[in-house]
């Protein structure tokens, strides 16, 4: 069993990687939902009821190949507020489970790329994260395909081990919300879309997604407008729809959004007003000199720096990929530190100080817009 300290020491590796497709596609994860027959759903059950569900599920889950060795396992009351906060920032727990207590369990795989949540909004919710993001050409979702296959293998193993409500043979599972019954699987793509967001085009994208039956929402779910240009595209389960049917269509839509973002970036790069050069330069200046920074300001600024890096407006001595990875690591470290600081007023000072130090220690050159670009 993994100890809590070990779990929290390092963020999941996939959160630190530079995104695929010019740093637009930050990750893919899959949410699997199942309920046990004969037990009330977690929203309508007592502590005893939840405990009974946990007793029926946890031992079997710990036998799955993903969780068999070196996994972390805890019942929610054992985790304090700061720990839950950190797990949320590491994307290793869902907001619903983070707010729950007795009879609710969390199991996290050693590699931190699989999480089983017992008595979340449903009896069992499993998140699987894609680790490693090699460049993929249009239509070439081979590696994503392997990932989805491993998810399906795991789900079939579970279907054999537990008596789930619904009809596993027909790929139809019952959930507490009737409209969400179906194959019990949702695919999420986490996207970094600074150019679309800066150009106020997210409204358009959202409308297009509605027509395509793909959902979109800001990545950070705390209800603020703190998006840091990160969005999630995701599918909704529907009766009779199988993972294989959705995946191709879904990644096609993701691909289209990515193309749109890349197109707008190119436009920004060649636009005579030089707004993007101005924005990246000012953002760097702010990080270099700020004395107080909020988490939102820091996240937004880091997003713009990533954009400037990919567009080669700033060139870092360590290389673009390495820079983005260090920046991701810093962002996670500082967000966790600020969120768990005892003295809240000290956080903005701390964030600014750490950012100034990081910028100072990271050699770079700025590139000017090329004359030939202005035709």
């Amino acid at each position, binding site marked *: 069993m993994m100890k809590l300290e070990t779990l929290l020491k390092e963020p999941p590796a996939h959160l630190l990687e530079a995104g695929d497709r010019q740093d637009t596609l930050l990750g893919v994860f899959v949410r699997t939902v199942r309920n046990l027959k004969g037990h*009330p*759903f977690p*929203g309508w059950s007592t502590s005893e009821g939840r405990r009974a569900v946990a007793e029926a599920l946890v031992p079997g889950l710990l036998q799955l190949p993903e969780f068999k060795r070196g996994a972390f396992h805890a019942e929610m009351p054992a985790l304090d507020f700061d720990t839950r906060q950190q797990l949320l920032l590491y994307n290793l727990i869902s907001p619903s489970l983070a*707010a729950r207590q007795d009879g609710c369990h969390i199991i996290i795989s050693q590699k931190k790329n699989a999480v089983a949540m017992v008595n979340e909004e449903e009896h069992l919710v499993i998140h699987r994260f894609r680790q490693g993001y090699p460049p993929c050409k249009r239509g070439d979702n081979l590696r994503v395909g392997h990932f989805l296959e491993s998810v399906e293998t795991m789900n079939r193993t579970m279907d054999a081990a537990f008596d789930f409500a619904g009809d596993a043979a027909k790929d139809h599972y019952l959930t507490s919300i009737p409209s969400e019954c179906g194959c019990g699987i949702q695919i999420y793509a986490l996207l970094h879309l600074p150019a679309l967001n800066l150009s106020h085009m997210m409204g358009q994208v959202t409308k297009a997604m509605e027509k395509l039956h793909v959902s979109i929402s800001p990545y950070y779910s705390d209800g603020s407008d703190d998006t840091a240009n990160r969005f999630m595209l995701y599918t909704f389960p529907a009766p009779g729809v199988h993972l294989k049917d959705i995946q191709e269509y879904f990644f096609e839509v993701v691909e289209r959004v990515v193309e749109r973002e890349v197109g707008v970036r190119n436009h920004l790069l060649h636009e005579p007003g030089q707004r993007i050069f101005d924005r990246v330069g000012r953002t760097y200046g702010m990080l270099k000199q700020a004395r107080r920074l909020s988490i939102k300001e820091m996240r937004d600024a880091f997003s713009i720096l990533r954009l400037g890096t990919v567009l080669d407006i700033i060139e870092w001595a360590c290389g673009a990929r390495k820079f983005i990875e260090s920046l991701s690591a810093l962002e996670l470290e500082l967000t966790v530190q600020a969120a768990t600081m005892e003295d809240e007023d000290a956080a903005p000072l701390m964030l600014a100080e750490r950012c100034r130090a990081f910028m100072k220690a990271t050699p770079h050159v700025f590139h000017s817009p090329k004359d030939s670009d202005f035709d």
Partner: protein
Amino acid sequence: MFLTQIVNGKVTEMALCEECAKARGLFDPQSLTFAEKFFPQELQRQMDKIVRQLVQGDKEEKRRPAAEGCDVITACPVCHFTLEDYRRTNRLGCPDCYTFLASELNAPYGDAEDVETTQQEQPLRSTKDLEAELQQAVEREDYERAAVLRDEIKALNNAPKA
């Protein structure tokens, strides 16, 4: 049921009837403390939604002709979740609700005819049924609901026998 809510440092007290207390995911006092800390805005939004639903539910109640039949609720025998609960929360209580509350799930919400049919199919609840539900309510520590059931049982027992 009184619920003390701390949103953005302000303490607000809300009075809620037992029906609302059933939206347990939100009103589970244990989870509430954490929900407040994590998602003050989200919690506020959910609160607003529930209050809105309650206001609408009241209007709905008044519009329904068979006022005396209204308390006769189709309930899932396994988990005692009622159609009323489903209308308020858009959720179900347990997988068996799909079998026992099927008519409502397949019908569009607010279909007056369907409400009447459902009611006619349901016999008036006996003291025995109420007592069983009271037992359940006590077991899940839903004392608000238990109090109402206790009063209903009392009223039934005092009523002149037909």
